[in-house]
């Protein structure tokens, strides 16, 4: 069979398949029904969904809610790997780039775990091989004897270069926070470069990436404000490429009045959904509630971009994000029910 690698055909094919997969995701009404279930009933329901195979596979290693969580993470990882395999040509590369955040999370978990002397098994339990680095590659990296060797053996060269640059400082200060921020900045820079690379739907997606950067930076502003400033240390947390300059964000993070912060942010934002979300932040609420509002806004915007560009990279990315939040929602319900949180509180943390 000849695979069509160029023109609009691959986009139609992949977009259609992604739309079908997205339609199979759990709808809002089902989440609301789940919120009113007890934990045993919820667990039975999960086993009847597509997570059954992973639950069976991992039942020897994990128990209870840990089993549900790990099974869902494995399912997510496998699904992402299937999407990477499905995407043809340049879409594959872009999908890989988009999923790099999982690689960042995994590689940092390995480095931190190694540095703190955790066993290989314990490190393996916190990895989700949903990015370009698959499970055997991650296993190989875990088996390396030192952090320097792990960085050397990392197949993603740009990531390896960033890690090598900051590794000695991180090992000296016992903190990988700075490297982590640098890696995420690299991640967004890569996305911007890929979106500008001439791919179909790239330019609308570029706007979305910039929007996501704004959301991330705004969230960081509110997080820094909640922690009371800390100017000297926050030098490297602002992601370039969005609507705001690092100096502006730095200033806003030390402004006391929320109204002043919201007004300043609104001056530069043009997306209506975000303007509405920012307006709702005037009232005093917990920082994680602000973050949930911003994530919901981000997903809605992504959906809009995807509908406006039906045969582009957007439907694929929308599916990846929606799938991630399906896993996150199910995990939240399981963990919340285990911790005895009320359904109303839990509902606030679901992205529906």
């Amino acid at each position: 069979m000849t695979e069509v690698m160029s023109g609009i055909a691959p986009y139609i094919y992949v977009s259609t398949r992604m739309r079908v997969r997205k339609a199979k995701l759990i709808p809002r009404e089902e989440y609301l029904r789940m919120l009113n279930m007890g934990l045993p009933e919820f667990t039975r329901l999960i086993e009847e969904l597509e997570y059954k195979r992973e639950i069976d596979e991992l039942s020897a290693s994990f128990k209870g809610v840990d089993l549900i969580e790990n099974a869902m993470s494995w399912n997510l990882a496998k699904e992402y790997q299937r999407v990477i395999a499905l995407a043809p040509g340049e879409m594959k590369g872009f999908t890989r780039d988009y999923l790099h955040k999982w690689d960042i999370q995994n590689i940092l978990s390995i480095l931190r775990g190694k540095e703190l002397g955790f066993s290989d098994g314990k490190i393996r339990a916190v990895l989700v091989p949903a990015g370009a680095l698959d499970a055997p590659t991650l296993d190989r990296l875990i088996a390396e004897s030192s952090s320097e060797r792990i960085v050397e053996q990392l197949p993603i060269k740009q990531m390896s270069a960033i890690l090598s640059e900051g590794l000695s400082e991180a090992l000296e200060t016992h903190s990988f926070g700075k490297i982590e921020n640098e890696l995420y900045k690299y991640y967004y820079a890569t996305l911007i470069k890929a979106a500008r690379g001439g791919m179909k739907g790239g330019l609308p997606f570029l706007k979305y990436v910039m929007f996501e950067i704004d959301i991330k930076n705004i969230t960081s502003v509110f997080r820094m404000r909640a922690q009371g400033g800390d100017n000297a240390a926050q030098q490297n947390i602002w992601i370039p490429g969005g609507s705001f300059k690092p100096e502006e964000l730095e200033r806003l993070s030390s402004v006391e009045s929320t109204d002043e912060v919201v007004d300043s942010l609104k001056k530069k934002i043009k997306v209506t959904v975000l303007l509405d979300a920012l307006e709702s932040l005037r009232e005093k609420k917990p920082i994680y509630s602000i973050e949930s509002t911003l994530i919901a806004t981000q997903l809605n915007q992504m959906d809009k971009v995807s509908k406006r560009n039906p045969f582009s990279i957007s439907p694929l990315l929308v599916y990846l994000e929606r799938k991630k939040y399906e896993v996150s929602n199910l995990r939240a319900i399981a963990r919340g029910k285990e911790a005895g949180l009320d359904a109303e509180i839990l509902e606030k943390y679901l992205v529906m």
Partner: protein
Amino acid sequence: MALNVKPTRSELIALKKRIKLSERGYKLLKMKRDGLILEFFKVLAEAKDLKNQLAEKYERAQRMIAIAETVDGSIGVKSAAFSASENPVIDLKSKNIMGVVVPKIESQSVKKSLTNRGYGVLGTSAAIDEAADAFEELVECIILSAELETTMKRLLDEIESTKRRVNALEFKVIPELIEARNFIKMRLDEMEREELFRMKRTKGKSAAKAAKLSAAHAAE
């Protein structure tokens, strides 16, 4: 009670001195006990307040970690927890409350700023910040609570031993000394009376003898 004391004047003087000293000691110890009890109640009020705070902070920390696990999952929370490599430093000093040495615990690096916690701001959620914040506050409260609880325990021990000393002085040592003093006094008085009687009797005998002699002389 059989008293084993020599009923001598020097013993009486020594006993009087001991009674005076014991009574002075008794007064001082009573004052110390009362002072310690006052101090204990002050610390108790603080400790009660702190215990309530501790319960509240523990509850908040548990709620926040449940929320963090709800939002980020146990994998996300564990991954962020891998970043916490800098342990809090506890500096143990001591202070003196009415002669009782109690600990003074000072802590460093418990409450950390967002960027000093070791995890990256961009790869984690605010729920983790809130959970870390809640646990840092809880650890600070536990350290303060440890200081107050140990102070209370030491004060209680000291109050107990002072109370025992006061009671021993009040109901055992001083009454026994007074009894001994009274006994010696009584014995000395008795001896004095005996001496007086003996002297009077001797004098009487001598007088009778003299009278007899003078009567004999007069008859001659």
